[in-house]
């Protein structure tokens, strides 16, 4: 037994004895024979895939020998094993490029979280009470299998449903195929900050239903409409890497960056010019810029004719978008619009980005199409320094012939609203068994959607999540997944590189708890169900399925691997597979199609006189949509603008605050037509006077010891307005009123906001 490992087990970070020799006699733990022999104190590096967001960054895991407390055969003991110590970006990986964002760095705590579920659980208390009793895996799986057999007997196959967090690659396919083979509909995905509007707009404009990749490192001018692309949106690590190059990577050239948004985000704080705009009018501003360029002959209308032609009035030079008219609508001065337009036209290559709140209005689709048109005018589509689409490199499970169906397993998702209606019995078929995988709609869906009530009507809910959260406390059975470090992982990023990328990684460490990979559990259930389900899923394990899927990649596209066997080896070595060659993706782009799109003005919930403020929830730097709120590192990460820790806040403009009699830290009540909440006020000059903003992420009713009952959840205020084109929630379309309630508590890391005269760096 070595000293350091001893320390880890017996002193737990410094409590108890300072004696490093010989364990305390009163606590003799059994020591199990190690499964692997590692050099103590020497690190090995293993590839993995970050599960933190949809960017799909490849990571390297620093693995060192450690003493883990485990339970083996019902006995509590210690075993020497390789344990993950730190995550770094995988330098070979085209998305992360050896770098990692704060959430990625903290993802290691997902594995070691003290409240992680370590074995299957069966509900004993009332739903939502969080009272469970442990169960062994055989019993747990057979419980579920019985349920499914019962459906089978009653020919009620369609009443099985699955709700997952956004998944890609083989895991998504396995779930989809399982449902399909069982005879149920496709799985549903729930995501609060969905980018589906943009995907659909891109499909319309460019024929690609995909998020774009921006070649910022070669751009000279970047204008972003609401996209927090350096913080939380799309592929922040890849985008930040390119941003650094744009600013200082080229001798003598420094790209200019303009951010258009009503509340200064972390990304907006980096802009050379920050342009506050009325919420929902971003598209109008984009077309206003296009108008000036077309009008002054700074750009030719023909360059983006096909994409632009989607906009009503394009061929006439967008007469409705003269700067004065745009000023009236957006609040941005006409002179400023003209100036921005001439800068954009002069500093090529220039690129426009849209993401986040502008898409989350009822006119989100229009905003996206408008920005796409602006890109077309700028001639940035598919060009160096512009926007492009990442070549797709989907790994797909090979088709298996079965008697019932040969349909593609890549079936589209079932919309979440449809699933909701099914659960509530509004539309058929109802839901009798719900498989829940890390989606947390109870937390992240508006109250008006009545998710809680809908879940209550589902007779049997199975969760595969690793934590008890707001939604999984409704589960009757919990079959906890491995953490991403303990399991095989795969992902297929859709954006962030100009190479095709598939991320695949072997487990970096052995499981700490008695958990099982969800993919393996599904395969096991399929096996036990037998029949067409097991025929459709013939693989023994997730690893088998992955190996089979990797066969599908084009081996020739990579320089290092010539055969599919080589690809499998390569994949395991480097944590995935990606093409070497740069692909020109513009040629792949299909032309725009469809009827022209009229200007759409945003619709807001709530009367302007009763609810005078626009309410802007935004993904927080630490928690994204709240799914990382249980990580103590993230809780104690000072928000970079507010520097707040361990809580929520309401951002208010100083003038507004003065008018409302609110000062920093006061408890304010924010009320919408949907409900009300209380949170401390943060007076910030970086927000428009008619907007109040709140970070999403806190306010979990149940989410481990670190996040439960902490702060307020702004989603609870959201009106159930949707963007009509995609059906996704228009989360920026709610109006609220604000009133002072008393003294609140705001834990800030920073003391002062303003630099003292003369500055601090000299």
């Amino acid at each position, binding site marked *: 037994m070595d000293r350091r490992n001893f320390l880890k087990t017996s002193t*737990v970070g410094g409590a108890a004895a300072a004696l490093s020799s010989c364990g305390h006699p009163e606590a003799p733990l059994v020591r199990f024979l190690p499964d692997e022999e590692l050099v103590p104190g020497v690190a090995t590096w293993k590839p993995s895939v970050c599960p933190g967001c949809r960017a799909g960054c490849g990571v390297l895991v620093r693995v060192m020998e450690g003493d883990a407390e485990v339970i083996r055969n019902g006995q509590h003991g210690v075993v020497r094993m390789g344990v993950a110590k730190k995550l770094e970006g995988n330098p070979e990986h085209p998305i992360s490029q050896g770098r990692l964002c*704060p959430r990625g760095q903290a993802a290691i705590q997902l594995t070691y979280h003290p409240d992680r579920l370590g074995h299957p659980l069966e509900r004993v208390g009332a739903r939502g009470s969080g009272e469970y009793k442990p169960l062994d895996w055989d019993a747990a799986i057979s419980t579920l299998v019985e349920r499914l057999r019962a459906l089978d007997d009653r020919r009620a196959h369609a009443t099985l449903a699955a709700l997952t967090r956004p998944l890609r690659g083989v895991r998504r396919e396995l779930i989809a195929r399982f449902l399909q083979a069982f005879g149920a509909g496709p799985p549903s995905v729930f995501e609060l900050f969905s980018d589906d509007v943009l995907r659909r707009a891109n499909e319309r404009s460019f024929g690609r239903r995909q998020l774009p990749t921006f070649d910022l490192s070669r751009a000279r001018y970047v204008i972003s409409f609401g996209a927090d692309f350096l913080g939380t949106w799309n592929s922040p690590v890849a985008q930040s890497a390119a941003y650094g190059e744009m*600013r200082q990577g080229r001798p003598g050239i420094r790209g200019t960056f303009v951010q258009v948004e009503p509340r200064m985000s972390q990304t907006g704080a*980096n802009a050379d010019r*920050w342009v*506050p705009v009325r919420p929902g009018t971003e598209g109008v501003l984009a077309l206003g810029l296009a108008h000036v360029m077309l009008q002054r002959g700074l750009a030719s209308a023909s360059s983006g004719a096909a994409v632009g032609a989607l906009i009503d009035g394009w061929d006439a030079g967008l007469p409705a978008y003269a700067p004065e008219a745009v000023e009236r609508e957006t609040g941005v001065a006409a002179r400023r619009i003209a100036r921005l337009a001439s800068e954009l036209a002069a500093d090529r290559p220039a690129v426009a980005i849209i993401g986040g709140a502008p898409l989350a209005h009822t006119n989100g689709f229009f905003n996206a199409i408008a920005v796409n048109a602006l890109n077309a005018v700028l001639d940035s589509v598919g060009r160096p320094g512009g926007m492009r689409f990442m070549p797709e490199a989907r790994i797909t499970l090979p088709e298996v012939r079965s008697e019932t169906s040969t349909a593609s397993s890549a079936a589209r998702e079932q919309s979440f609203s449809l699933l909701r209606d099914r659960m509530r019995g509004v539309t058929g078929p109802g839901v009798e068994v719900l498989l829940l995988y890390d989606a947390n709609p109870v937390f992240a869906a508006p109250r008006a959607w009545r998710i809680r009530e809908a879940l209550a009507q589902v007779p049997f809910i199975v969760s595969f999540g690793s934590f008890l959260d707001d939604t999984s406390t409704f589960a009757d059975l919990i079959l906890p997944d491995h953490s991403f470090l303990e399991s095989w992982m795969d992902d297929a990023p859709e954006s962030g590189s100009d190479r095709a990328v598939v991320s695949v990684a072997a487990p970096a460490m052995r499981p700490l708890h008695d958990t099982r990979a969800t993919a393996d559990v599904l395969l096991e259930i399929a096996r036990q169900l037998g029949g067409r389900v097991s025929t459709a899923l013939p693989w023994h394990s997730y690893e088998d399925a992955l190996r089979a899927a990797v066969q599908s990649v084009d081996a020739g596209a990579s320089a290092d691997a010539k055969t599919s066997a080589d690809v499998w080896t390569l994949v395991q070595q480097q944590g995935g597979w990606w093409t070497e060659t740069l692909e020109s993706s513009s040629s792949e782009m299909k032309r725009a199609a469809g009827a022209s799109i009229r200007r759409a003005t945003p619709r807001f919930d709530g009367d302007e006189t009763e609810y005078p403020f626009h309410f802007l929830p935004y993904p927080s730097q630490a928690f994204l949509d709240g799914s990382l709120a249980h990580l103590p*590192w993230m809780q104690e990460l*000072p928000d970079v603008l507010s520097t707040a820790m361990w809580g929520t806040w309401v951002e208010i403009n100083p003038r507004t605050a003065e008018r409302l009699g609110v000062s920093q830290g006061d408890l304010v009540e924010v009320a919408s037509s949907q409900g009300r909440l209380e949170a401390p006020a943060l007076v910030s000059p970086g927000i428009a006077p008619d907007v109040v903003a709140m970070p999403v992420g806190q306010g979990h009713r149940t989410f481990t010891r670190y996040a439960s009952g902490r702060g307020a959840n702004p989603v609870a205020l959201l009106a159930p307005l949707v963007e009509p084109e995609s059906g996704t929630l228009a989360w920026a379309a709610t109006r609220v009123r604000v009133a002072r309630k008393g003294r609140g508590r705001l834990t800030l*890391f920073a003391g002062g906001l*303003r630099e003292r005269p003369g500055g601090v760096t000299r």
Partner: protein
Amino acid sequence: MPHRWGMVVDLDRCTGCEACVVACRAENNVPTVGEAEAARGRAIHWIRVERYVDGEFPDVRVKFLPVFCQHCDAAPCEPVCPTYASYHTADGLNAQVYNRCIGTRYCANACPYTVRFFNFFNPVWEKPLHLQLNPDVSVREVGVMEKCTFCVQRIKAAEIAAKAEDRPLRDGEVVPACAQACPSRALVFGDLNDPDSEASRLAGSHRATHLLGELGTQPKVFYLQREGGHDRQDREGDQ
């Protein structure tokens, strides 16, 4: 010639994403203190991204400034320590020797950058979070001061590896956790005595400045000022 470790922070690249903050926490066993203690001003962040706001709506400009121990050559924290817990190493690091610290906290008062952090209580990692602790770095106990070490454990490991191979250290061989994580490559670490190191080259930039340079602490951290700056004329012209 001994090394002279230094860091260059390109403020034009820094986006304020705080990847460095969490990377440092993960690498250096920096404890979380919980809400109550954080509210009392006892949160520990060896590196922090300071933000300063200039102007009023709508002309708001923000400056991000990653601040960590500046490893001053004329460090105010060093002479005041009665027990040599804070001292200057041969390769220019401002070292903090935990076992020698008796907790006078004088160094923290003397530090003009306020980058020294004190363990007001004994930190605890709730099981099994302790499995993540880096065995190459001490776990500090109650009553001792701690701060950025430039990831001295990585420097030592690289030195030992280089010595085993009987070769000098290469530029870029030592990368502190913050610089390694930084997505926009705003942080560059290197030997300032090596004129060819990237850090040396960048430190010679016309944009290079020191934080609180007027205090004469001779920091080994250089800040490359943002370009573009405040374009007041533009704003006046627009409004």
